């Protein structure tokens, strides 16, 4: 007697309208949206072009976790180190003037909700949380367009054969390079001034253990986040450099305006190499081996660049919606991605409960975002990008040099009295900023950075 095949195999599977929502991109924003919707009982399909979530993600860094912590059990998340020190450095070609913070509080849970992560691991874990709540994850699949029916968005098209699938709601969480949203005219293509390029390397230190702890003065799970600006960081481009410590690697990178990257004759890779060779940076990355190199765009248009967040049958979240704060002091996108995904997920769950698909039914998402720190922060710092652009030479070249000169003068050891050193130091700074009046104007202009 020969055994038989069970006969319940589906010959022609079709998942049109089997899912309540499709999420395009399983990054932070996408997984946050999927997790939120799955938690509320929706059937969710996440479509990710990478072979796993995070496989294609370039990210140098610090994950800000206040919202993630609310959405899932964060205990087992694959984080590298908590941020115990933040350091801001001004670099001229040869000098460094730095300011460092190591508050005791950051050593204690929840570590100011700031952790270094490797996105390859973290994104996979986060997507897994959504899957555990019932969401379906489909990898190695690229969404190529949106399906429209009677003017409203009714599903997505993918690069696979038989590749169209219908669903009442689509969440666009495709990150900064938002080809789907742009292709469907849901947002305008960003102008060049509003896009930064980020290049990053992950370095390891094969020669011995403990290199990171020694060089960055760390114990246990403590880590650092170093930010650099000035011409020593990214030449005459508008932007900065960073170093973050992971568990046994460091992430080092630069992020600056695409416009500068295109018009100046240095490639992003060369800019990164120059940064890594700066006398203040080179000793930190000495004898390292590069294990990963990657490049990506960062939207930095701020509040003015946020597109319409909801459409009939769709919502845009995270970097795709331009939700990144990048102003030299802060580089935050992860927290905004998760926060926006959460609010969009909630709005869709509510609309679905009422059986409505129109943009007006999703309006609670932009409303909630307006109220949240996301839009508040972007609004608050709106002026800053313009101001910094205007004062670019001063901030990135003249001031770093003036501070370096002032420091050199102030601490000079020779046979003249200290009073004359102090006077020289003061002059170096005042010359750069245009005297006391200039200094006062600057202080006024930038007071909102800290207030």
């Amino acid at each position, binding site marked *: 007697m*020969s*055994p*038989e*095949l*069970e006969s319940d*195999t*589906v*010959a022609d*599977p*079709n*998942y049109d309208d089997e899912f309540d929502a499709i999420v395009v991109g399983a990054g932070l924003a996408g997984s946050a949206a999927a997790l939120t919707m799955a938690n509320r009982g929706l059937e969710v*399909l996440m479509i990710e072009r990478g072979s796993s979530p995070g496989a294609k993600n370039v990210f140098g860094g610090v994950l800000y976790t206040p919202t993630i912590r609310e959405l899932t059990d964060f205990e087992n998340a694959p984080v590298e180190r908590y941020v115990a020190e933040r350091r801001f450095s001004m670099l001229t070609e040869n000098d460094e003037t730095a300011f460092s913070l190591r508050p005791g509080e950051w050593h204690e849970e929840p570590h100011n909700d700031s952790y270094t992560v490797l996105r390859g691991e973290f994104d996979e874990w986060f997507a897994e949380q959504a899957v555990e709540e019932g969401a*379906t994850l*489909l990898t190695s*699949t690229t969404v190529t367009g949106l399906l429209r029916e009677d003017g409203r968005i009714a599903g997505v098209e*993918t*690069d*696979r*054969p*038989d*590749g*169209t*699938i219908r669903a009442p709601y689509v969440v666009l969480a495709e990150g900064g390079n938002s080809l789907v949203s742009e292709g469907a005219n849901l947002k305008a293509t960003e102008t060049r001034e509003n896009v930064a390029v980020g290049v990053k390397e992950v370095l390891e230190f094969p020669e011995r253990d403990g290199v990171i702890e020694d060089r960055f003065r760390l114990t246990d799970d403590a880590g650092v986040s170093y930010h650099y600006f000035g011409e020593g960081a990214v030449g005459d481009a508008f932007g900065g450099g960073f170093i973050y410590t992971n568990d046994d690697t460091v992430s080092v990178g630069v992020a600056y305006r695409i416009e500068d990257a295109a018009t100046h004759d240095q490639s992003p890779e060369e800019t990164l190499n120059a940064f890594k060779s700066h006398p203040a940076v080179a000793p930190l990355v000495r004898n390292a081996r590069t294990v990963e190199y990657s490049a990506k765009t960062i939207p930095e248009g701020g509040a003015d660049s946020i597109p319409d967040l909801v459409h009939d049958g769709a919502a845009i979240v995270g970097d795709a919606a331009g939700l990144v704060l990048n102003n030299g002091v802060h580089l935050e996108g992860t927290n905004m991605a998760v926060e926006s995904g959460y609010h969009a997920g909630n709005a869709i769950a509510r609309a679905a409960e009422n059986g409505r698909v129109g943009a007006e039914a999703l309006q609670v998402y932009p409303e909630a975002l307006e109220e949240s720190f996301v839009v508040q922060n972007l609004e608050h710092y709106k002026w800053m990008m313009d101001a910094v652009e205007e004062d670019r030479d001063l901030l990135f070249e003249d001031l770093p040099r003036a501070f370096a000169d002032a420091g050199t003068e102030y601490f000079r050891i020779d046979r003249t009295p200290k009073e004359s050193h102090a006077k020289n130091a003061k002059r170096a700074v005042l010359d750069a900023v245009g005297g006391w009046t200039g200094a006062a104007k600057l202080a006024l202009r930038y007071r909102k950075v800290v207030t």
Partner: protein
Amino acid sequence: MSWTIAVGVKQVPDADEVGIDPDTGRLDRASAPAVMNGPDREALEAAFRIRDQAGGEVIAMSMGPPNATSVLEEAVAMGCDDAVLVSDRAFGGSDTWPTSLTLARTAEALDADVVVCGEETTDSSTGQVPPGIAAHNDWAQLTYAEAVDARPDENRLVARRDVEGGHEVVAADLPVVVAAAYGEFEPRPAPLHRKIYGENDFEPTVWDAEDLEIKDEVGLEVSPTSVGGMETVDPVERKSEVVDDVDDLAESIEEVVA
């Protein structure tokens, strides 16, 4: 007339992740995630091409532990019509002989006209299983097949075989076992809805040794292979040198080449 095409797919440790235990020198397979044997993707593609020509069904079969289900789900995602897992504790310790026997019986139970296998596996790479299946069932075999051409009217399958110094074209009467030459059958992308189905909703049929009536013919006891011993080879110390510019490099190369 339509054909039933059975495809052997094996679950192997991900070769990219297999490490070598520094203390014992042994391959550390346990910690590597299990994936579909790469050449078996190409076997699936060869099977789909045969189905395109002759019509019929492609059914994936795997002999392995219960978690080998995942490679069968993947096979269905890629386009198989169905899949069967052959799993039994009794299979433990089987070498290529009982493995081939098990797959031969499975192919028979499926009423297969064609069996397609990969050239070899990435973990044991004997290449013995496809000819083994053919031998157990007394079927024809076409190994190292670079191209397949189904002739349903003639009830024959034609293959171009890679042989030393060239190739030959061979026609075989059904039933036949094909081993697809590695690198010759670029797998097609999985259709969207099939991929969702295969990965999430499909469950393979499971047969055990009793179903196939081979309980006493499998396992360690009846496996003729015995491993005489294992040796690890110490890596040869390679000379390495860092040079500062291209000319120095050219010089070093010249030295070595000369």
